[in-house]
């Protein structure tokens, strides 16, 4: 049987030092080679079961170091071609890898799908089939609206309402298509547009809220950027204080990069110090800027550390320019406030003295505020389940595709098809995907017939 290539994060989210992202299916390798690059690695030369060290493309022109291993069918867990990526722990990076695989053509795995494939391909014995049945049921159960309803009634209502509204739109379009004689013409496209925009913004709100909630669950990634001698390390140490949890110097993989975390007001902050900007003058631009750029990829917030007692150097300016170009979420930290200030004013800045431990709490507060813009209330519009979150994001993407500049030129049959996709996608959360529902609505809502 021809199968999609599926992907999911195989390790528990947010825990452990590494995350494993697993692909299974006949296109596993071709998908992997679109996003992962290593020396002497290509379709012809790849050696199964050999660990490759290379770069994973997390965004355009941006790479993360990553390990990859290929299992050739049938010698794998599922009996299909499998590729596994190992990246550093933390949710964001694992998410990025997952997203890239999805973009490259993989499909999000269904509940229990790896095991199911393993069974179908004879990799698991028959008596284990019942266990897989349990696994599918358990995982599906967890995703049903009912479970969402129990934990979060308001959210469940919101999603149901959005889906209902889409259903109504569909019914209105369908009436116009199936009953062209009706004088009550379907509402104008403008009306449809407005109502869809509204649905879109509601879904967007849930997605944004959920992102914030993820910070609560998995922490905020903060990158410290700046040239040497501005006191980056002391800023880091001041932030960590006595609560200093883990300071890892990861040898070999991301050498010269220090990661550590602390907890402030219940939220975990993961700090990354790109400590590489201490090389000789000539390579400052290349190595320093490159490293800083890289840490930007996974950072929710950048702390640009400057020495307030000096004017901006050319290196400072280069970094600042780069940050502006990338439109990074950035806070300028003016260090050494114990000395007279010489540096210019920044719109979004904070003066501290790492040395004297002054205003460190203010900085900590500011960090939290800058990332978590919405006040997180777990009882409100937050999706915590990874699959539900993925479904919502997909629905949003589909809506955005409909509401593009071609909207007015789209014929109603195509519009209905696209809208139906959104409805079906949301239906994976609500469980409402019965076409008959739309037809029922057509008849209950509109006066039709001969």
């Amino acid at each position, binding site marked *: *049987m*021809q*199968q*999609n290539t599926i992907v999911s994060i195989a390790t528990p989210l947010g825990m452990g030092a590494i995350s494993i992202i697993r692909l299974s299916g006949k296109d596993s390798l071709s998908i992997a080679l679109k996003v992962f690059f290593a020396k002497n690695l290509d379709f012809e030369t790849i050696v199964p079961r050999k660990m490759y060290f290379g770069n994973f493309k997390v965004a355009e022109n941006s790479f993360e170091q990553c390990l990859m291993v290929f299992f050739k069918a049938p010698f794998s867990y599922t009996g299909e071609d499998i590729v596994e990526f190992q990246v550093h722990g933390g949710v964001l990076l694992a998410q990025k890898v997952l997203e890239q695989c999805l973009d490259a053509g993989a499909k999000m795995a*269904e*509940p*229990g799908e790896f095991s*199911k494939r393993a*069974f*179908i391909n004879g990799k698991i014995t*028959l008596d284990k*089939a*019942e266990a*897989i*049945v*349990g696994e*599918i*049921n358990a995982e*599906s159960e967890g995703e049903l609206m009912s479970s969402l309803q129990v934990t979060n009634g308001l959210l469940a209502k919101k999603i149901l309402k959005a889906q209902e509204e889409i259903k109504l739109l569909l019914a209105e379009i*369908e009436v*116009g*298509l*199936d*009953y*062209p*004689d*009706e*004088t009550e013409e379907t509402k104008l496209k403008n009306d449809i547009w407005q109502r869809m925009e509204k649905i879109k913004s509601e879904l967007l709100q849930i997605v944004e809220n959920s992102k914030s909630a993820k910070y609560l669950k998995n922490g905020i990634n903060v990158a410290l950027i700046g040239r040497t001698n501005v006191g980056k390390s002391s800023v880091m140490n001041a932030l960590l204080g006595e609560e200093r949890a883990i300071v890892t110097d990861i040898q070999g993989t991301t050498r010269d990069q220090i990661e550590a975390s602390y907890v402030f007001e219940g939220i975990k902050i993961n700090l990354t110090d790109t400590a590489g900007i201490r090389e000789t003058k000539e390579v400052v631009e290349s190595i320093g800027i490159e490293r800083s750029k890289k840490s930007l990829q996974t950072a929710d917030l950048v702390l640009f550390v400057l020495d307030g007692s000096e004017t901006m150097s050319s290196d400072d300016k280069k970094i600042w320019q780069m940050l502006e170009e990338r439109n990074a979420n950035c806070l300028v930290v003016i260090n050494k406030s114990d000395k007279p200030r010489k540096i210019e004013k920044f719109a979004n800045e904070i003066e501290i003295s790492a040395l004297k431990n002054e205003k460190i709490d203010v900085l900590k507060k500011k960090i939290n505020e800058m990332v978590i813009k919405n006040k997180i209330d777990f009882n409100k519009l937050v999706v915590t389940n990874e699959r539900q979150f993925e479904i919502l994001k997909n629905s949003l993407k589909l809506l955005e595709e409909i509401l593009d500049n*071609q909207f007015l*030129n789209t*014929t*109603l*049959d*195509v519009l*209905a*098809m696209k809208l*139906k996709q959104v409805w079906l996608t949301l239906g994976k959360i609500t*469980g409402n995907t*019965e*076409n*008959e529902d*739309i*037809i029922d609505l*057509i*008849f209950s809502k509109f*006066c*039709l*017939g*001969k």
Partner: protein
Amino acid sequence: MEEKEMEQFDSVVVGAGHAGCEAALALARTGNKTLLLTISLDAIAFLACNPSIGGTAKGQLVAEIDALGGQMGIIADKTALQIRMLNRGKGPAVQSLRVQADKNAYHTEMKKVLENEPNIVIRQGEVTSIEIAGDKKIVTTQLGLKYVAKSVVFATGVYLKSEIIIGKNREKTGPNGFKNANFLSNCLQNLGIRLLRFKTGTPVRIHARSVDFSKMETQLGDENTLSFSTMTEEKVENKAICHLTYTTPLTHEIIRNNLDKAPAISGEIKGVGPRYCPSIETKVVRFADRERHQLFLEPEALDTQELYLQGFSTSMPADLQKEMVHSVVGLENAEIMRDAYAIEYDCIDPTQLKPTLELKTISGLFFAGQINGTSGYEEAGAQGIIAGINASLFNKNRPQLVLKRSDAYIGVLIDDIVTKGTNEPYRMMTSRAEYRLLLRQDNADVRLTEIGRSVGLVDDERYKKFKEKCKKIEEIEEILQKKVNTDEKLAKFFEKNGESVPKENLKFCDFLKRTNIDIFKINEEYHLFDSNYDNRLLEIVNTKIKYEGYIKQQQEEIDKMLANENVSIPEDFDYMSIKGLRVEAREKLSKIRPLNLGQASRISGVSPADISILSILVKKGKK
């Protein structure tokens, strides 16, 4: 009577309505000696309700019947009084042809075709019973005549124990005063078949001389008329016009004041009526805020003055009907020639059928048309041709034909009724077809002619025509592959059509990716196609290229669906013993006994998780 003494046939078709005619023709044309039994020879292919064929989704069905080698499209073209393409400008997927047909000519023309078919014996008679004798079926009529056949197709329409209701008046008769069939229901029940009781209705017929047309809007046919059948060579001409009028506040008042006399509302009628075809009293009650409802006056035939008042179905008492009609704009002095009535009838629960339209429990018995709980001539004809094809294949011991949801509206129709059942007369709608961008009227022949050929129903003439058409389409596509230089002419052409001028050389087919440019505009400018390539062909290619992206998207969905469609489930699969399935799913699956995982997934109450589990256990069973 000994079996030897009885008349022997390959198949018997019971009923000569739209399903029965297609079934009998499909059987006869594939070499089966066929007996066509009908309660009245005058009821053959009778348009008992609307004098029209086609319409949204139904037009697609007619084109599909035609592509398979059926008759409905040819007769509809031949007897058309007015032709309109509906939904022009709403996208090619939902464009459907609809014709006003001459009701008398339609009957006569179809009867002629049947009479001229050497393999068909037409016989008036009411079937009162059927016996199963080994692999033979014995059909008995009310006069005691017996016929033996390998297979039987039941296409009895709305005649089973039918009752006509007008006010308090109930009469045990078939539609339009034809005799009904009083015995067959019980016989079917004795064979273990579950019956349902449905209801439908028809409006009044009015004498044209009594209508004030000056108060109504006229509705004309299309100028450039198209035809249903690819076999129709001549242009179909408009010969009549329709009129549009409205109910008034008075109409609604009369109805509201007399609801106690409305059988459909007072509870007098127990049968389930179709929601898409409500009586005028139902419309007034359910949509109380509507100030008026539109009504159409349609000519019944050229040789009569009778007009059909579309939108005015009712089962009110006859005197009230008159009052109601007279309250309608332009009908103040209308003479009613036939009363509106509701009709109740027995039909079978279609979930007892396989997707081949054969009964699950008794092989060789096929069912088609309104007896399966559907409504509409086109729906009936569609089932008729499939039942006929499958009865024929059954007789020859060949594998059965099942059209998939991605093949045809016919596939959607049959899959819906046998998988989900229906609790009202089922009507085809484009919104029921999830792959409707592919299931267009214009490509029905591309989708189905080869299938019709493989079962022996598409004759040489039709096949040759089809092949020629395919060749021409290929030629058009090839011509569009020509490269065009970006010269001044091209720049002007794009500007004129409000499109940005392309910078690099491109092909003509790339032009079509632009919203404001179609194949006709290109042809006007560049004269690529001569009169050898008619507009209909150009239109097909235009649609194909313009919709390429969406069509591809639907094709991908179909491929996904087929993965499940191709996993068949053993007929004797024991669902009740599977602990992993929810109880509801177990019961539903046991009842429907789906042929494959795809059909299983469409049963309401069966979840994706159930399907996952089922897929594992089906595999397990095979090992």
